[in-house]
């Protein structure tokens, strides 16, 4: 089964990864006072990136639609719940990656065969493509607020995505993307500019209300969109591949958990801030149900001023940009894994050109769609998270089976408690989808 030997030639990918790992080993064996902080700095990355990467343009749009439609209430604690679900799911992919040193797509093909593997890859590629389109919508809309043309915005984003990938070094790629991802927190000052009612926010967090208008099809749609804003198939593939590319081992699982937790907390803060920031639109009865990103910023201008709305628009641009980098990488990793071609951000372009070609081609294709006149972009932006939620139950089944597979997981397999919570997540997401299906087929049904 396992073929492990020391290759005769030193591979450049292994050498770069070994340098990163050696730094970790040196710090671990040192007596430095700031040892914990240094280790945290060295080992943080995949978890924060996957969580902040998922606070992408359509996600922020979903949160903004939630805040402007229902104000501060039921959805703030609901978003916290979705990030708890995301933590549980990503923690499993961390362990699978650290224990097997293989990507998610490669493991699915290995353990479940090509038949189920192609279904999984089909879900991933469809979801990734639609999501990438919406990220470019976010980029275009965000910079559109500053009167920057759509073509220039899209080319700028493409240039940044290609430039970051061409560093040909996982560590550099990860640090640059982390630096960009932190800007997701610009929604926090925007939320403060709206002078939120903290007592009302605290009440909502504890009591899960109010939910104006009661439970309706629209609530269900936004619930699904908000679930899709935190748990989606690309996250599983990206996170596991990034864990492998970074070189994390089972010894690093506790550090990996901290990485995911920090990412989940930062992303939850960003998401809740977007809800709070757009809640004044609900309070002022401004119908923002079908707003695109730039329109949210424009609608907020009379409330939070030009600088506040400019920050909101910048936040949407950043959200789209970081997600284009991470999502296109997940497509590249998955392609490399199932075709057994080199697939690492530590590989030079000439050695792993199909991997880089998929990253660039998926981003370029989505950019072209966004610049195509009369494409139904706003509807794609709203349904993409719903589609992600629908594709999640089959994807979660793969994760659950792999995380319980003792042959590949060795001592890192799922605990009983993790299994109970993970099964509850699958059931909850599936049931939300089924209820959504029922009310779509029977729209006059009272909930």
């Amino acid at each position, binding site marked *: 089964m396992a*073929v492990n030997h*020391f290759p005769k030639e030193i591979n450049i990918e292994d050498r770069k990864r*070994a340098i990163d790992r050696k730094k970790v080993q040196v710090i671990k064996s040192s007596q430095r006072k700031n040892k914990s902080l240094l280790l945290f700095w060295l080992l943080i990355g995949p978890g924060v990136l996957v969580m902040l990467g998922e606070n992408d343009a359509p996600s922020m749009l979903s949160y903004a639609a939630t805040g402007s439609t229902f104000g501060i209430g039921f959805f703030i604690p609901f978003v916290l719940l979705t990030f708890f679900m995301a933590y549980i799911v990503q923690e499993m992919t961390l362990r699978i990656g650290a224990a097997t040193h293989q990507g998610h797509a490669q493991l699915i093909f290995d353990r*479940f065969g090509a038949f189920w593997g192609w*279904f999984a890859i089909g879900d991933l590629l469809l979801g990734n493509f639609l999501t990438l389109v919406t990220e470019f919508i976010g980029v275009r809309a965000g910079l559109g607020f500053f009167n920057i043309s759509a073509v220039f915005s899209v080319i700028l984003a493409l240039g940044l995505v290609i430039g970051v990938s061409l560093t040909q070094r996982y560590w550099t790629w990860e640090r640059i993307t982390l630096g960009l991802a932190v800007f997701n927190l610009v929604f926090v000052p925007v939320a403060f500019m709206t002078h939120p009612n903290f007592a009302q926010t605290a009440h909502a967090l504890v009591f899960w209300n109010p939910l104006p208008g009661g439970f309706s099809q629209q609530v269900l749609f936004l619930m699904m969109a908000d679930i899709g804003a935190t748990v989606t198939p690309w996250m599983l593939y990206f996170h596991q591949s990034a864990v492998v590319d970074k070189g994390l081992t089972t010894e690093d699982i506790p550090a990996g958990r901290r990485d995911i937790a920090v990412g989940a907390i930062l992303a939850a803060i960003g998401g809740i801030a977007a809800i709070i920031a757009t809640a004044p639109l609900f309070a002022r009865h401004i119908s923002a149900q079908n707003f695109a990103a730039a329109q949210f910023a424009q609608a907020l201008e009379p409330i939070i001023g030009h600088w506040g709305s400019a920050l909101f628009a910048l936040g949407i641009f950043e959200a789209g940009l970081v997600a284009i980098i991470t999502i296109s990488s997940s497509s590249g990793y998955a392609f490399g894994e199932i075709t057994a071609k080199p697939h690492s951000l530590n590989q030079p372009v000439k050695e792993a050109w199909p991997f880089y070609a998929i990253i660039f081609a998926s981003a370029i294709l989505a950019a072209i769609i966004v610049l195509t006149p009369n494409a139904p972009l706003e509807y794609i932006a709203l349904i993409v998270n719903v589609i992600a939620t629908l594709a999640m139950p089959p994807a979660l089944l793969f994760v659950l*089976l792999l995380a319980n597979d003792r042959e590949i997981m060795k001592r890192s397999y799922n605990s009983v408690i993790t299994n109970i919570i993970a099964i509850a997540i699958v059931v909850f997401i599936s049931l939300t989808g089924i209820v959504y299906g029922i009310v779509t087929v029977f729209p006059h049904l009272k909930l």
Partner: protein
Amino acid sequence: MKMKNFQLDQDLLWPADALEPEQLSENVQNRHYGKKQLSPGAKLLFWALRVYALFMLGLVTYQAWANLH
């Protein structure tokens, strides 16, 4: 990150100093765990969730099409 008295690139003569054998890219590429035997229950669950996902995807696509026309 700068580290005194440690020239990483020069001191690291061989990646195996820092990587587990299973992490070496050649081994990752060549390692195949083999197909797992799925229980009838797992197979049923796979099919059920697959039918669910495809049906719901059709429903969302229909709704999108209906909204656009």
